[in-house]
C-alpha cells in the first residue's frame, strides 16, 4: 500500500473522531476547519497530488476526494445535530404558563337583552319585506288616541293608564301612533315595523312604567286576515322555533277590526301542557299555548284619517300588530321579573347579548 493512501486513512479516522467529539456547534465548526480547512493536512495532501507519479494521481486523488466528502458530510451532520439540540434547549427555556390569562385583557361587552331581542325581531320582519321606522315618544294625543279611533272620552282610553304632559301631549302608550304617522308620510303599499319605548302609568311586579313594543303595519290592496296569520306564523317560528304553531282568538282593539289575540304553541312543553315528568307546564300554565301579541285588520276609520295620503278604505286594506319586546325576551330566556330589565345589574347584563 503506497504511503499517501495509508495517510489518507489515518486522516479520515482522526477527522471523524474530532467531529464526533465536538460538543457544541462552535466545536463542530472548529473541528471542520481543523480537518477540512485551508491549512489542514488533507487540503495540503490534495494540493500535492499533482506532484505524484502519473500512475498514482488517479487512485490517490479519488481516495482523497472521497475522504474529504465523507468528512464534510459528517461535519455538517454533526453541526445540524448540535444546532437542533441547542434550539431545542433554547425554546425549552422560553416556556410560558399557558394557563395565565391573556393580556391586555379584552373582555367582550354585551348588548342589553332588550336590544338583542328587538334586533332579532326587526331582522325577521326585514326578511319578510318590512322596513323599520321609529316615531316620537312624546306624542300628540291625536296620534296616540284620536287618529286610532279613540276620540276623547272613548271608553277604550281607560284600558291604558296614560302619562300626560299637557291636555294635548302624552307619552305614547303604544307604538301604534306610528301607524298613522307612517301612512301620512308614505302612501300605499306600506310594510313597516316600529320598535320603541312606550309608557303606561303602572308599576308593579308585572308592569313597569316604561317598556318596549314593536308595531307592525302592512297595507296594500288585498292584505287579508289570512296574510296576517301567515306573517305571524313566520315570526313565531323564527323566534320560538320551526315547530311552532299559532292560534288566533278574537279580541278587541279600537284601531283594528276584526281584532285578534295571537298565541304561540308552548315551546317548553311542545304544546302538550305538561312536562316530561307529567307535571303541569308552569310556562303555559298547562294550556299548551302562550299569548304573545295582539293584532287585527286596520280599522277603516284609521285609514280614513290618512285618506289624503292615498288610503281609501274601499281600495286598500291591511293588518297591524303589536308585541312586547320584554315579554318575548322573558318567555325565551326565562327572565322571571320585568323589573330586572331596568336594574342594569352587570351580572344580568353579561348573561345575554
Amino acid at each position, binding site marked *: 500500500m503506497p504511503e499517501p493512501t495509508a495517510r489518507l486513512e489515518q486522516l479520515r479516522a482522526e477527522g471523524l473522531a474530532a467531529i464526533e467529539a465536538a460538543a457544541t456547534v462552535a466545536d463542530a465548526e472548529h473541528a471542520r476547519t481543523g480537518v477540512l480547512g485551508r491549512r489542514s493536512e488533507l487540503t495540503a495532501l490534495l494540493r500535492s497530488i499533482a506532484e505524484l507519479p502519473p500512475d498514482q494521481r488517479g487512485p490517490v486523488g479519488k481516495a482523497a476526494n472521497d475522504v474529504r466528502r465523507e468528512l464534510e458530510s459528517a461535519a455538517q451532520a454533526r453541526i445540524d445535530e448540535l444546532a437542533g439540540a441547542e434550539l431545542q434547549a433554547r425554546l425549552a427555556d422560553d416556556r410560558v404558563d399557558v394557563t395565565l390569562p391573556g393580556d391586555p*385583557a379584552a373582555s367582550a361587552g354585551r348588548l342589553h337583552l332588550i336590544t338583542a331581542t328587538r334586533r332579532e325581531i326587526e331582522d325577521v320582519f*326585514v326578511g319578510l319585506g318590512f*322596513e323599520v321606522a321609529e316615531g316620537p315618544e*312624546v306624542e300628540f294625543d291625536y296620534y296616540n288616541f284620536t*287618529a286610532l279611533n279613540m276620540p*276623547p272620552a272613548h271608553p277604550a282610553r281607560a284600558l291604558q293608564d296614560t302619562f300626560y*304632559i299637557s291636555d294635548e301631549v302624552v307619552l305614547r302608550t303604544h307604538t301604534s301612533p306610528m301607524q298613522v304617522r307612517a301612512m301620512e308620510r308614505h302612501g300605499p303599499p306600506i310594510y313597516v315595523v316600529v320598535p320603541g319605548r312606550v309608557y303606561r302609568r303602572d308599576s308593579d311586579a308585572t308592569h313597569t312604567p316604561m317598556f318596549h313594543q314593536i308595531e307592525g303595519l*302592512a297595507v296594500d290592496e288585498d292584505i287579508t286576515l289570512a296574510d296576517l296569520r*301567515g306573517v305571524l306564523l313566520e315570526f313565531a317560528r323564527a323566534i320560538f322555533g320551526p315547530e311552532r304553531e299559532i292560534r288566533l282568538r278574537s279580541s278587541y282593539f279600537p284601531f283594528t277590526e276584526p281584532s285578534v289575540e295571537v298565541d304561540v304553541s308552548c315551546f317548553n312543553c311542545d304544546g302538550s301542557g305538561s312536562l316530561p315528568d307529567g307535571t303541569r307546564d308552569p310556562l303555559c300554565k298547562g294550556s299548551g299555548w302562550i299569548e304573545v301579541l295582539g293584532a287585527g285588520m286596520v280599522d277603516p276609520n284609521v285609514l280614513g284619517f290618512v285618506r289624503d295620503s292615498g288610503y281609501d278604505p274601499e281600495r286598500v286594506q291591511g293588518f297591524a300588530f303589536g308585541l312586547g319586546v320584554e315579554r318575548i325576551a322573558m318567555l325565551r330566556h326565562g327572565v322571571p321579573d320585568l323589573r330586572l330589565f331596568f336594574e342594569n345589574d352587570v351580572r344580568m347584563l353579561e348573561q345575554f347579548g
Partner: protein
Amino acid sequence: MRVPVSWLRSYCDPPLDGPAIGARLNDAGIELGRIERVGVGSPDDFVVGRVVTAEQHPNADRLRVCTVDDGEPEPRTIVCGAPNVAAGQTVAVARPGATMPGGAVLGEATLRGVRSSGMILAEDELGIGPDHDGIVVLDDDHAPGTPLADVLPIHDEVLDLEISPNRPDCLGVYGVAREVHALTQAPLADDPTAADADARGDDRADACAHVEIADPDICLRFTARVFEDVRVGPSPQWLRARLTAAGQRPISNVVDITNYVMLATGQPLHAFDLDKVPNGHLVIRRALPHESIRTLDGVDRTLDRDNAVVADSTRAVGIAGVMGGADSEVGDSTTRVLMEAATWVGPNILRTSTALGIRTEASARFEKQLHPNGALAAQRMAARLMVELCGARLVPGTLDDYPRPLEPRTIELRDARVAKLLGEEIDGSEIASILSGLGFALSGDAHSIGERLADAGDSLLEQLAASGLVPAEQLRSYSLRDAIGRFVPGDATRTVTVPSFRDADVEREADLIEEVARVHGVDRLPTSLPARRRAVGRLSEPQRLRRRLEDALRDRGLFEVVSYSFTSPATLARLRVEAPIALANPLSEDQSVMRPLVLPGLLDAARHNAARGREAVALFESARAYGALTSVPTGTPAGATPASERHHIAAVLTQASPATWRSDVVPADFFAAKALVEHLLDVARVDAPLETADHPFLHPARQAAVKGIGWVGELHPAVAAEWDLGRVGGFELDFDAIAERSPGPRAYKPVSAFPPVVQDIAVVTPDDVPFAAVDAAVRSASDLLVGVAVFDVYSGPQVGEGRRSLALRLRFRAPDRTLTDADVAAERERIESALTGNGWSLRA
C-alpha cells in the same frame, strides 16, 4: 263580569261543561279571565230535610236538639245553634261526609253530650250568600231527601269574563247567553225583558211623579215607573244566590231587583223612595257650581257643571249614572217606589266617574254608551219582579222623556267584502246564520245580480226545453249559470239591521265582518303570505350605522344598559341642568321629568353595580334624550312632533381596563373616554374637532365639546361623589347628528405601490400649545406626509419650565415613486422651518 253558569244555562244551555263554554267565549273575543267555583265543595250529601222536632238542648241554652227527616228511613239527630230553627221547617241539611265550601269534610260530633249527625245550614255555610244569622228555610213543597242542588245553586261555576269596552251588552248575563247561542246554536230562551207586568189601579204614574230632561246633551232618555204597596224585605233564596255568585251583596228585595235586572240585561236602574222625593218631581240637569250631595256610600261630594245629576225641585238626589243619593234611598219603611231607568251620555259618565274617583257597576256600564231601548226593557223586567217579590202594585203609565228617539241602524254587507278582508270565502248561509244568531235582522236581496241572471237563464232553458224547439238532451250540456258566474262575480249584498244593544259597537261593514269572523272562528282561517309589491325590507342607513356604533362599544367591552326615560328634578339639579319636559301626572317625584340627557341613567346604573360590589364598570346606553316642547298646532298635527327628541349614545366608565398580572390598571380618565369617542367617529367616518366646553357636571379642566355632536370628559368630582363614585370618564353624543354627517358611498382612492419612509422628530413648545396646533403645522408643511403619530410627551428639566416636548413619528410616501434621501430631507426641512417659524424649537 261574573257570570254564574247556572244562571247562564237558564237562558242558553249548550251540551258543554262550564270550562268549554268559557273557552268558546274566549276564542270569540269574550275573554275568560278565570273560572271560579262557588258554593259547596261537592253537591253530594247535601239534601232537603224537614225538622220533625226541635227541643231545647239539655246542657246548652243556645242549642236545640232537632230530629230531621232527610229522606232516609230513620230521622237523624242534629244539634243546631240557629235561633230560627223550628219544627215543621223545610231546611238544607248536610249529612256527615259532605264537603263544605271551604273544602272541609263534615264529620259527626258530640256537642255538650249530644251526638249530632249532620248540620242544618245557613246561607253562608252553603256559599250562596253572606247571611249567618239563621238557617235557610226552604219552600215546603220540596220533599225531604231531594238533592239540595236541585233546589238551590249550591255548587256552581262562575265565568269571570273580561268584557271589552265595545261590548256593554255582555255586561248582562242574557247578553252573554246570546253569544253562547250564536257560538253553539243551542236554543236561546226568550228575552227576560220581553214580558211586562200588569198595571193595576185607577191612578196614573204621571199624577204621582213628573220627570223632565232639562239638558238633552247629558241624558238621552229618562224613564220612570211608580210602584205602590211595596213591601221591603229580604229577597228569596234563589235571587240571593244568583246575586252572591255574581259578586253582588244582597240588600233588600227592591235594591236586589235593580241589581239583578242590571246583571241580567246590562241596564242599571235606580229605586227612589217616592215619599222622599218632594212632589215626585225629578229633573235631569247639570250640577250647579260647587253643588254638593251625600251619596249612598255616605260620602259628601262636590260637583260641577260637567256632572249630570238627577235632582228634585231643590237639590241633587243622585249623581247621574254613577251613584244615587243617600236622602232618597229605599229603606225598610219604604212603601212607594219610583223606579228609574235612564240612558246617559257615555263620555260624560266616564268623565264624571274619573273626576270624582267613583267607579260603580252602573258607571262602568253607562260609560260604554247604552242604547235608549234598554231603559224601557229593564223597566219591564223590573216591574214583573217588583210585583212578584215585593207584592207591589204597578201604577199604570210610564214616565218617559226621550227627546231624540234613535232609528235602528242599517248597514249594507257585501259577501265578497267578507272574503276579501278575511282571505276566505264564507258561505252566504253561514253569514246569515251567524248574524241572526247574534240578534241582527237581515233583509233585502241576499241574491246577487249574477244569481238573478243565472236564475233567469235556467228558466229560459227550461222554457226552451218545454217548447220542444230544441231536443232536451242537447240543452243539458249548456249551463248559462256557469257562464254568468264567470263574468259576474258574487256581489251578494244584504241589508243588516243592527239590534239596539249592539248599536254603539256595530256601525260599519267592517264591524259586521268582524262579527262573522269571530263566530265563524278566526283560528279557522287559512294561512297565506302577502303578495308583496314594491316592498323591499331593509334597515335604513342611519339604522345600520346605529347598530354598528352600538356594536363597536360592545366590542370594546362595554355593557349596554336600558334605563327609564324619566328622572327626578333632584337628579337633574345634582347635574346642574334643567328639565325641559315635566309629566302632569307622574307616578312619583323620581320619575316626574323627561331626561334631557342619557347620563343620569348611566350614573344610576354605575351606582347600582358599585353598591353590589362591582365598582369597575364600563356602560353605555343608546336612547332618546328629550328637548323642549314645541308649540301645539291648531287642528290636526299633520306630522308635527310635540317635542324635540334626539337619539343619544352615551357612556360612563369607572375603569378603562383592569390591572392584570403584567399591566397596570388604565384609569377611566379623559383619554379613555376620548378613545371611545374617536373610535365611534372613525367607525362613522365623521370628523369632529374637539373644542372647549363648560358643562357644569364635568371636570372644568378635563372636558371638551365634540363639535356639533356632544361632549367627552371626566365627571366633576363633586357630581361623581353624589353618585358615590370616584373618577368617572364619559361621553354623550347625538347619534342623529353623527348620522347626518356620516358620508355616503365613497369613491376609490389609489393606493401607492412604493414603500414609506419613517422619520422621528421632537418639537419643544410652550406647554399651553395644544398638540392639535403642532399637528396642523406639521401636516400643512408637507405634501408627502401621510401620517403623524405622537409617541412621547415629555415635560421636565431637559426642556425647561413651562415647556414640553412632543415626539412625533412622521411617515412619508409618494404615490408614484420610491422616495430618495434627498426627497425626505427636503420635506423634513420644510416641516422644521414651519415649526421653528411658530417660535417652537426642535430637540435633537
